[in-house]
Structure formats: structure tokens, C-alpha cells
């Protein structure tokens, strides 16, 4: 189990134990954290699981695969620290990861 903190747009912190091997998106959806729609179910095809990765963590995450940056073009208000949470796989290395959920997904 790895602790992930999701900060929703209303500034509420949700710290959840997420099973290793799941994605950050699945951790949010399974725990009913609002603001992650994940319309395509993790297929990197919809850009509705967009998160901002907390400073300090962004560079520690495995690099984006081809296609993620393309999908982020369509995300709502993408920033430099934007990621698709369906592409971040939870592992011990991510213990303490903090992500911010945008005000909307589209």
C-alpha cells in the first residue's frame, strides 16, 4: 500500500492507501474522490483523469509515454506539471505523492 494525497479543487485533502500496481486514476475512482472522470477507463484516450503533480514529485515520476502529451493538449487548463493519472502506476517509490485535481475535466 502506498499513500497518495489527492487535493480536490475545493482544497480538501484526501489521503488514501492505494494498492501498488493500480494507477493513480484507479485509486481516485475506487475511493470516490470527486473530479476524476476517467471516461475512457484508463485507455489514454480521453484526458478526463487530468491532474497536476505536486512540485518535487513531477520529476520523480516515470516519464510520459508517447501519446500522453498529445492527450494533454485536450485537457482542461493543462500546465507544465500536468499528467494523466491513468498513466501513473502506484509503487513504493510514490509513497507520499500529492496530486491536485483541476476544477473541471472539460
Amino acid at each position, binding site marked *: 500500500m502506498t499513500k497518495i494525497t489527492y487535493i480536490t479543487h475545493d482544497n480538501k485533502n484526501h489521503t488514501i492507501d492505494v494498492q501498488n500496481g493500480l494507477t493513480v486514476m484507479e485509486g481516485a475512482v475506487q475511493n470516490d474522490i470527486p473530479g476524476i472522470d476517467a471516461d*475512457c477507463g484508463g485507455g489514454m484516450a*480521453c484526458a478526463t483523469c487530468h491532474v497536476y503533480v505536486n512540485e518535487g514529485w513531477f520529476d520523480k515520476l516515470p516519464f510520459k509515454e508517447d501519446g500522453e*502529451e498529445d492527450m494533454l*493538449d485536450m485537457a482542461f*487548463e493543462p500546465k507544465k506539471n500536468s499528467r494523466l493519472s491513468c498513466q501513473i502506476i502506484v509503487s513504493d517509490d510514490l509513497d507520499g505523492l500529492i496530486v491536485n485535481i483541476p476544477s473541471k475535466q472539460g
Partner: protein
Amino acid sequence: MNKTDALIIGAGPTGLFTAHQLKLIGLNCEIVDNLDKIGGQCIELYPDKPIYDIPAVPECTGEELTNNLINQIKPFNIKFHLSERVDEVKKEGGNWIVKTNNGTIFQTPNVIIAGGVGSFEPRKFPVKECEKFENKSVFYSIRDKNIFKGKTVTIFGGGDSALDWAVELSKNSNVNLVHRRDDFRGAQATVDKVHELAKEGKINLYTKYQMTLIEGEKQLESIDIKSDDKDVKTLKTDYALGFFGLIMQLGPIANWGLNIDKKTIEVDTEKFETNQKGIYAVGDICTYPGKLKLILSGFHEGALAARACFKLARPNEKYRFEFTTSSKTIKDRLGVKSD
């Protein structure tokens, strides 16, 4: 007024197979979809991605699956109403009166919602004030390119739509192209063309910029764009065009008096009927204990909903269960020879 035994909302795999099941048991149906093409998410989101869990099909892409389903319903000549969104569903006697945003009206005892995660709508600019100018000087698709002649047009986006329109409109308009990063995801030939036109001064290219402000009294006057390094530029412009792809929205379905839980519609597992008699939900948009969001579940749900439709469409007839392998009636409907 189009009278039909059942109206299907959504032309994705579940909607298509539900149509097949309706026609097979002798009911008429028509299909409405907000996309301009058949196939739903399979065609819009992942046409090239392989799917491995369609029964008896070890591997196929979203596009192949769609084409096979279209082939499967070919004998039936089903009428599609594409690029139309159902806006209103109202009860009138024993029928539902269904209206689309194009003004098409249906009268039917059965409405089957096979809407996936909702209808595909263009993604809009995050800047809220853009709404004020929408369909006047802010557009997310182009119907008549002639209105841009001699004007300044600011295009946002990095995919094929944005690039194709930047190239096309640069012939007769002053074009700004704004994108959030240096890389474009459009076809390489078009990307090269855009860079060439930028070099010739025919397109003003602003990469690593995004819109932060839109201004104008009645008419759009200017747009502020801001770079990653916080540099702000004000662009005078007559029009702003955004091409950020599509997003799925539940839309008007939310107003039809159905029990909705987390963007899905509650149904029973006998008829896949909602809390409204004669309105069914099948595929990803429906929910019930144990629901799996798989295409194969949608097929099963559609088959059962189709049988439920029979009762309301043919109240004086008895439904007879038949196999396609042996039924002469079904073979006639399919237009295949009986043994």
C-alpha cells in the same frame, strides 16, 4: 413525425447490436447519434486500439468491430440520424415523443438509451467569458469558412483540425495559431506546411502559449495569451477557434426524470428498463448490481431490452423465441436462403 417501434440513442457497438436484435424479432428501429459517424467511442476514441475480449473474436480494433457490426445489420436498412442530439423526451399517451436538436421528431413506445458516457461535444476554452461570444465570434467547428475572409482569426490547438484550418484560412485571412507546446500532433506533412507558412509570415505562430483572457463589448476584440514563462501577449482578433477534440457529456439525458447515479442510469436486469416505463438503458450508461462496463455486457443488455420492447410495440402479439439457425422467419428478415 417518424413513427417507429423503438428509438435507439447512440450508435456505438451496443446501440448497433441492439438494433440487430430488434430487427431480428421483427421490430422497426431508428438510431440517433450526436457524432457525425457510426461507432461511438470505438471510432472516436480508439479506432486503432486492439480489443481482446469480444467473444469469438480473439483480436480486433475499434474500427474493425464497428465495421463488422455495420455489416451485421446491413440486411435491415436501418435509418441513422447522425450529428443529431436528442434533447427532449416526453410522454404522450402510450408513446414517447422524442425531439432532437435538429427538430426531428419521433413517436415511439420504446426509447433505448445506448449512450455510453454521454454524447460527444466539443471541448471548450477554459476561459469562461468565451461563452458570451460562442457561435458569434468563438467557434469550435466551422460551418461556413467564408465569414473569415479578410478577418483576423486566432486558432487554438495542435491536432489536425487546428492545423488544417490554419493552413486553409491563411489563404484569405490573417491567421494566428496558438498551441500550448512546440510539438504538434497533426499529420507531419501539415505540421511542415504550418512551419513553412509561419516562415513566410502567412501564419503567426505562438507556441507554449494559452488563452487567459478574452475581451470585447458586443464583438470580440482581443485575446490575451500567456506563455509558460508568464509572458503575456494581447492579440487583436475578430474570431477565435478552439480545436481541443471532443468530450463526453451526459447532457439533456439528465433532465428526463430517470434515476441517475454517477452519470449512469439505474435499470433492472430483466428488461434493462429505467424507472420510466418504455425507456431502457444499455451498455456503459446503465448501472445495476454487478454491472461490468464491457462491450459484451452491452450486447446482452441490448438483446434483453429488445425483447422487452416487443411487448409495448406489439401488445396484441405474443413474442416467440426463435433461433437464427432454424427459424425461416428470421432467415427471411436477414434475406438469407432457408435450407
